[in-house]
């Protein structure tokens, strides 16, 4: 009679002999690790030379890679911030609407519409932004400029083409709206009905219930969705590259003028075709930087979810 068997031996006497599938799936998992490792290593190898670049060989005659990178990072963060500002109220509103008001067919249609919105390729958004948003934005920008020009954001001569950072942010906002609303919708659905019914039993109106119970309880989920959307907006390339024609090294708060900061991702796409020599290394280094920023954002998002969601679930 055998004594107390250690679990692994007890369970796998036969498995160990036969299980090629375990090895196969394990190697798939290792391949995944390898893929990400490869991304970091190869971007590092090809990006590092740019660190020693000078105004002689860097794109746009930048004195160093940092002089090139900072304004672009600013542009990425600024455009994404504006997009979040525009998309989050609407996205959360849609989510609340979908959960509490649009029951049945209406809710399903809204869900499908949001799904389709998420599936539209970014080049199509680029074309659409240029053909639909930019021309319609011009009179609005002129109005904002004459009436509210004293606010720094609206200062300067408004663009006559409508291809400004605000237009790019609008297109980005439409692109990230589905992420914000679908993640928020899941977070709101997870609020236990005991909480909502409790609030209603105390005589709260629907608005009071949502404001005092639902939104606070769903907050960490909504914030995670916003961070996810932020990561997406930071990395979005084609739509911004098509809508925006940036001015190198510009850091500006102005939203309506034809002189706009560029974004990292769009800059890479716009300058890639003509790049040669160390300029290519510089673009790769910019890509690594962008990766680091989006990584930090997603890390932050997970930390938020873990800290406030871990205890209750």
């Amino acid at each position, binding site marked *: 009679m055998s004594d107390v068997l250690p679990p692994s031996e007890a369970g796998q006497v036969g498995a160990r002999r036969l*299980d090629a599938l375990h090895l196969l799936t394990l190697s798939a998992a290792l391949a995944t690790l390898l893929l990400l490792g490869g991304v970091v290593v190869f*971007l590092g190898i090809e990006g590092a030379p740019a660190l020693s670049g000078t105004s002689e060989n860097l794109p746009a005659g930048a004195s160093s890679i940092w002089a090139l990178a900072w304004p672009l990072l600013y542009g990425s963060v600024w455009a994404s911030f504006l997009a979040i500002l525009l998309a989050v109220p609407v996205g959360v509103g849609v989510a609340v*609407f979908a959960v509490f008001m649009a029951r049945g067919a209406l809710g399903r249609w809204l869900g499908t519409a949001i799904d389709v919105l998420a599936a539209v*390729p970014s080049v199509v958004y680029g074309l659409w932004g240029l053909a639909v948003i930019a021309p319609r934005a011009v009179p609005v920008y002129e109005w904002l400029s004459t009436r509210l020009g004293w606010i720094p954001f609206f200062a300067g001569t408004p663009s006559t083409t409508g291809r400004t950072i605000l237009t790019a942010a609008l297109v980005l906002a439409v692109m990230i709206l589905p992420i914000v609303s679908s993640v928020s919708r899941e977070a709101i659905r997870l609020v236990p009905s005991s909480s909502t019914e409790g609030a209603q039993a105390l005589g709260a109106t629907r608005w009071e219930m949502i404001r005092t119970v639902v939104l606070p309880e769903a907050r960490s989920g909504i914030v995670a969705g916003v961070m996810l959307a932020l990561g997406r907006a930071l990395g979005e390339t084609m739509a911004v590259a098509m809508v925006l024609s940036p001015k190198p090294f510009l850091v500006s708060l102005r939203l309506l003028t034809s002189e706009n900061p560029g974004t990292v991702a769009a800059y890479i*796409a716009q300058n890639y075709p003509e790049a040669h020599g160390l300029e290519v290394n510089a673009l790769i280094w910019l890509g690594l930087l962008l990766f680091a920023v989006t990584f930090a954002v997603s890390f932050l998002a997970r930390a938020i979810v873990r800290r406030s969601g871990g205890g209750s679930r």
Partner: protein
Amino acid sequence: MRIARKRRIADRGFTIALACCGLLALIPLISVVWTTASRGLRRLDWDFFTQSMRGITGAGGGALHAITGTLLITFAATLIAVPIAIGTALWLVEYAAGSTSPVIRALARTVRAVIDVMAGIPSIVAGLFMYAVIAVTVGPGYRSGLAGAMALVIIMVPVVERSGEEVLARVPSELHEAALALGVPKWRMILKVVLPTALPGLVSTLLLGVSRIIGETAPLLLVAGFTDSMNYDLTDGRMVSLPVYVYSQWQNKGVDAAAYDDRAWTAALVLLAGVVLLHGLARLVVRRRNQTR
């Protein structure tokens, strides 16, 4: 009474504001679909699907080479990404989850974290990665459909892995037990019970993964390049895809600018229709499974 009225008005206002949000979300969708359809229909003709852009400088021509390129590149990317993604998901759900070994548990945690990080990689970074790989191995200047497909693999793996993991985890544990109790080795149980049971969900996962990469532009622009001609060889030479075709038609307009714009919109329409079709199919597969239950 006054307070009650105030509260009622606030509630009413709130309801209206939310309905406006719903409408506001629909406006861009309707606008995108309407604009793409109305402008894309102008060139939605036989030539568009049967001709390339070889030797075309003004009107005419088509996107056959781009459609072929999209199909080839997407197919190759799917062929590489799906085994990695589903294999990883299987390992996490079927092997790592039931293990008490601290090594395997740590590895599983690492793999999940890596998948999360990969899901956040901007697509242009995936393109740059493949460019860097090419520069180190083959030498810069090399462009091919396969390089583009490899960049898309980076984007597709986390998408398919995550939803594949969800689908596999939903296979009831009763079926695992039923198979094991019949004296079936674990690997056969996975191949013959788990995978067939999860198949509709996995097919839907696959379709959503394809729809995610089929519209990707930036990475292909970088490593697959652009061409006006047909290219059936994934390993040799530039290969254009539909999204890149849209971008380049818009970017490099010739003398007859309207002809280039029309082609860009028509390609956008075909692309949009393809993506919506894939989404519809994915839903259909899952719904049919639910009905037969």
